[in-house]
């Protein structure tokens, strides 16, 4: 929504403030001004001059030399403009002045300075300018010539301020009006707020009765078949129309609001839409068949040509304005070509109606046509505003001599909208705001914005144009706005103390971050939605449950169309991004959700599982990644019964270099080397490694409880054991056996050598462990050690392991 300062001042004549003061004060009272533009910001030293003499330039065919009277003196100006003649009154920029742009309409920030100088040897002391050079256009000043200097009317005062004469000493404000303040989509509504904000008198237009002795109802009959979609329909008739340009003051106001003046009738409907926020439509009465208007839903499959000459396809949810035979307009959106006003119109029908906002919004969306009118209607207008607006339009018709207004109005308004009455509870308002304002102060604020008060019932009466006031909290906001948010005290909540806390799962997440970062991984952030093609890139089979992903109905495109069921694609995409930018040794981690539907189509919310995903390429290998996983699990007290099961069921990982991570019987994640084919698909030209930990499982197992176990006081005994192991036996299995057989006195077992090669027979590897025993309460005796080692040996032998020492 835009308004000019001059239009606001028309209703708040005492308003006296700068554009910045207006912006600040209005914003703080709730009518947010987004910005403003002064029409004259790049115009300087421009007066009305009259050309007294024109001579041909001696050295240039296309230039003329003019003597221009600027009131105080006559100056010489050289111009190339083709349209001036002696006696013309023109805008003249004096030496040292500025214009806003070029004559072709191109604007220059800060304006173009004009200096006196010589043109082909002849002195020129200024410049005559076109409407474009003045920063405007022929659209807004239709009287301006197509090429050449703007010409003032004959009665213009020579020497006067040309900017003023053109109405360009004005400021246009742009507002952000929130959806609850429908009244502020019209100049009157904003002016009311401005008056209240600055404590000035508000003088809205005084609408006087209009019309001849005839009755509109003798001209037209209106039937509303769908009153739920059209709560009110007002119609008036104007005959003997004289189409002409509208008066300059109206043209200027429309121009400043960015609306192109067309003719008196069109301008009046546009003017009313700006002033009252009420869209109107004018029909050529002679094109209305059967002298009747029927408001009904469109027929299924109905098509209709709107006045922009486009054929529109409609359905039965779209409300139509029809005559006795045919549709003549899409209600609230756009009129039809078949009934539009032409220059030959003699009698017209004015429509000011109120339509259901939601219906207009949905219809406008479905048809694919959003207009100034539909944008207003979709907010849900006040039906009581329509009558005032149509009468104001007729008043303007009479004042401007645009036609003869027929008396009376046809008004279909079955259920009259009543003002809302809200109990006035000043103590509750103070309690909500934390203020201590008197009843009188509050009532004073209400009066400023035309809210009524019934002292009998102690009720505040919200006029129907305020569709946002229903209860005490709403009134509290009105009080707060005009008392000033800045004046409300600042306190901190009192009452029962609460303890701030970070829940357990977030603490676990913080540990994940810390460990990852200590290990050189930086945190990335991946999208939650991705392309279904990710599954193909990851070689995930067609029948994999991972492919059961939740689809977004209205995605930003196929690449963002499913909610991810794995976090690997995001990680590989980011690693690939780094690889393609030649970043070396990249380590990334992510904490983000995957979304696993319980069933598809989705009926209840999916299982959102936070995944701790690590990815790297460059320095390090599988065991580096495994080390990070171990550090993380150790930190969370998930130590002891951890195991890594070699698997090959994840197609995106190297079949011989992947493992599921278990704690006891629970699978808490997996890690592995990225399958070379997959790495190549993503464009990662090195070995890459991935680890994924399922945070809900990890969190379930994590504990921050620790118990000090004392520092060992008795000596440890270490035995090394060297063996020949079948290749199929895993280190983890050997360790499990040693731990199981070692008993309570086993402190640790550490692999210190592993070798496969020429010296070892085929199918075997040589491994050596260092096994440490210690008792808490005594020095171990040789017999203890021997017994334990014997058990271990027996165990290992049962695994077809040959003990060498």
């Amino acid at each position: 929504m835009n308004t000019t300062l001059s239009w606001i001042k028309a209703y708040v004549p005492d308003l006296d403030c700068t554009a910045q003061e207006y912006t600040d004060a209005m914003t703080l009272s709730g009518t947010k001004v987004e910005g403003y533009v002064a029409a004259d910001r790049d115009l300087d030293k421009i007066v009305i001059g009259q050309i007294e003499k024109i001579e041909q330039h001696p050295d240039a065919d296309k230039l003329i030399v003019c003597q221009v009277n600027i009131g105080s003196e006559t100056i010489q100006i050289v111009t190339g403009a083709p349209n001036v003649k002696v006696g013309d009154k023109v805008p003249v920029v004096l030496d040292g002045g500025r214009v806003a742009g070029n004559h072709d309409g191109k604007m220059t920030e800060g304006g173009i300075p004009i200096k006196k100088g010589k043109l082909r040897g002849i002195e020129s002391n200024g410049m005559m300018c076109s409407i474009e050079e003045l920063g405007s256009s022929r659209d807004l000043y239709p009287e301006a010539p197509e090429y050449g200097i703007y010409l003032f009317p004959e009665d213009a005062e020579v020497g006067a301020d040309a900017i003023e004469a053109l109405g360009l000493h004005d400021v246009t404000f742009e507002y952000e009006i929130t959806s609850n303040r429908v009244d502020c989509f019209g100049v009157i509504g904003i002016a009311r707020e401005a008056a209240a904000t600055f404590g000035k008198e508000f003088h809205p237009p005084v609408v006087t009765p209009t019309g001849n002795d005839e009755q509109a109802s003798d001209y037209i009959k209106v039937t509303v078949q769908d009153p739920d979609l059209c709560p009110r329909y007002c119609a008036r008739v104007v005959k003997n129309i004289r189409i002409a340009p509208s008066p300059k003051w109206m043209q200027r106001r429309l121009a400043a609001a960015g609306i192109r003046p067309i003719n008196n009738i069109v301008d009046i409907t546009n003017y009313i839409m700006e002033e009252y926020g009420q869209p109107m439509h004018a029909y050529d009465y002679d094109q209305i068949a059967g002298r009747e208007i029927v408001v009904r839903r469109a027929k299924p499959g109905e098509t209709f040509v709107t006045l922009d000459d486009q054929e529109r396809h409609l359905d039965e949810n779209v409300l139509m304005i029809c005559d006795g035979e045919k549709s003549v307009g899409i209600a609230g959106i756009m009129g039809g070509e078949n009934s539009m006003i032409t220059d030959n119109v003699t009698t017209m029908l004015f429509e000011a109606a109120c339509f259901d906002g939601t219906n207009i919004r949905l219809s406008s969306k479905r048809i694919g046509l959003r207009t100034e009118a539909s944008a207003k209607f979709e907010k849900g207008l006040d039906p009581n505003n329509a009558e005032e607006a149509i009468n104001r339009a007729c008043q303007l018709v009479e004042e401007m001599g645009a036609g003869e207004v027929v008396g009376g109005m046809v008004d279909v308004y079955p259920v009259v909208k009543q003002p809302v009455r809200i109990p006035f509870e000043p103590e509750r308002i103070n309690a909500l705001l934390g203020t201590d304002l008197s009843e009188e102060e509050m009532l004073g604020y209400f009066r400023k914005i035309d809210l009524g008060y019934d002292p009998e019932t102690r009720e505040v009466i919200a006029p129907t144009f305020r569709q946002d006031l229903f209860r005490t909290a709403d009134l509290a906001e009105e009080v707060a706005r005009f008392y000033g948010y800045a004046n409300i005290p600042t306190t901190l909540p009192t009452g029962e103390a609460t303890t701030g806390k970070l829940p357990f799962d977030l603490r676990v997440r913080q540990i994940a971050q810390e460990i990852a970062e200590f290990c050189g991984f930086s945190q990335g952030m991946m999208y939650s939605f991705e392309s279904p093609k990710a599954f193909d890139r990851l070689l995930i089979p067609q029948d994999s449950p991972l492919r059961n992903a939740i689809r977004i109905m209205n995605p930003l495109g196929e690449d963002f169309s499913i909610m991810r069921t794995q976090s690997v694609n995001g990680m590989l995409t980011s690693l690939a991004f780094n690889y393609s930018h030649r970043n070396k040794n990249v380590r990334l981690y992510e904490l983000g959700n995957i979304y696993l539907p319980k069933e598809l189509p989705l009926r209840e919310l999916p299982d959102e599982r936070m995944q701790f995903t690590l990815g790297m390429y460059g320095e390090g290998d599988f065991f580096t990644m495994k080390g990070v996983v171990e550090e993380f699990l150790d930190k969370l007290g998930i130590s002891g019964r951890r195991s890594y099961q070699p698997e090959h069921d994840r197609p995106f990982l190297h079949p011989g270099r992947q493992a599921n991570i278990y704690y006891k019987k629970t699978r808490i994640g997996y890690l592995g080397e990225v399958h070379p084919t997959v790495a190549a698909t993503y464009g990662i030209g090195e070995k890459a490694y991935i680890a994924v930990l399922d945070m809900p499982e990890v969190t379930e197992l994590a504990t921050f409880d620790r118990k000090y176990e004392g520092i060992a006081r008795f000596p440890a005994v270490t035995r090394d054991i060297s063996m020949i192991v079948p290749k199929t036996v895993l280190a983890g299995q050997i360790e499990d056996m040693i731990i199981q057989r070692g008993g309570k006195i086993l402190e640790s077992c550490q692999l210190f050598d592993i070798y496969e090669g020429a010296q070892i027979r085929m199918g075997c590897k040589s491994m050596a462990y260092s096994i440490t025993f210690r008792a808490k309460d005594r020095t171990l005796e040789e017999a203890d050690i021997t017994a334990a080692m014997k058990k271990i040996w027996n165990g290992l032998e049962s695994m077809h392991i040959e003990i060498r020492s």
Partner: protein
Amino acid sequence: MKDKLKAIREEALAQIEQAGALDKLNDVRVNFLGKKGKLTAVLKSMKEVAPEDRPAFGQLVNETRAQIESFLDETKQKLEAQALELQLKSEVIDVTLPAKKNSVGHRHPNTIALEEVERIFIGMGYEVVEGPEIEYDLYNFEKLNIPANHPAKDEQDTFYINKEIVLRTQTSPVQARVMEQGKLPIRMIAPGRVFRSDEVDATHSPSFHQIEGLVIDKHITFADLKGTLEEFAKQLFGPDTRTKFRPHHFPFTEPSAEVDVSCFKCGGKGCRFCKGSGWIEILGCGMVHPHVLEMCGIDPDEYTGFAFGVGLERIALLKYEIDDMRLLYENDVRFLKQF
């Protein structure tokens, strides 16, 4: 004898004086005080001394020995100090050579900003709560006073899974979820990921983060809201930060406000970050709408409360002067390691 001892002493002292190095000094010790040393030899000749003279002689030998030993120790310390000094001189390093760093990873700027916000509110007694990212329409809209066909629903460019389930467009549904649990009073913040169907560009992302705040208790006022957020702004942006509350409209709060803080880059003088205004809009807030309280089973006559929502990216981008939102999702380590 006496003279002999004197001569030995003089000789020893002279040799110590000249030793000049620790190994030579040790030779001197052996030569004089060792088993076969000169002084030891004198002591061995004790039997040649008349018995009555022996105590005096013994004393004299011991004195000589003590003198030699003391000078030896003294010289040894001196030489050791010299040797250490020499060693230290030879070990001088160029301290400006490059450091050997443990390459530690870096946290995402979003997380850093979030942790800052969490720290502030936990300090004020707030609990951190999370809610689902895929959410029922009921919680995302209806329970927040945004009924079906409300224009605000269109304004938010919602991603739909189906008619009832959406990608949450705001963290506000967590408000409704926590209120419904009925445990009062409430002081919570709910950070999290939200979604709107905006095409990716320098200033838009279809996925971003908000932090919702909610306080419900008896006698909570708009003044409390102001005080809380002023404190928050001061802690986040510095003690000189000023705040400006502007009336606004949100369906789920009444009265509502938008909050600007004095620009933390220029202090309010006006710069490119605040587009010359001196103020930066950082959040929306208001008193929880009584109808929202009612829908969540809380009696608005007994309880009041306030809520606020902060855009995390907005804070992170401004605070770290990041000029393109796409950087946040590219995960380029050259970007990440700057935080």
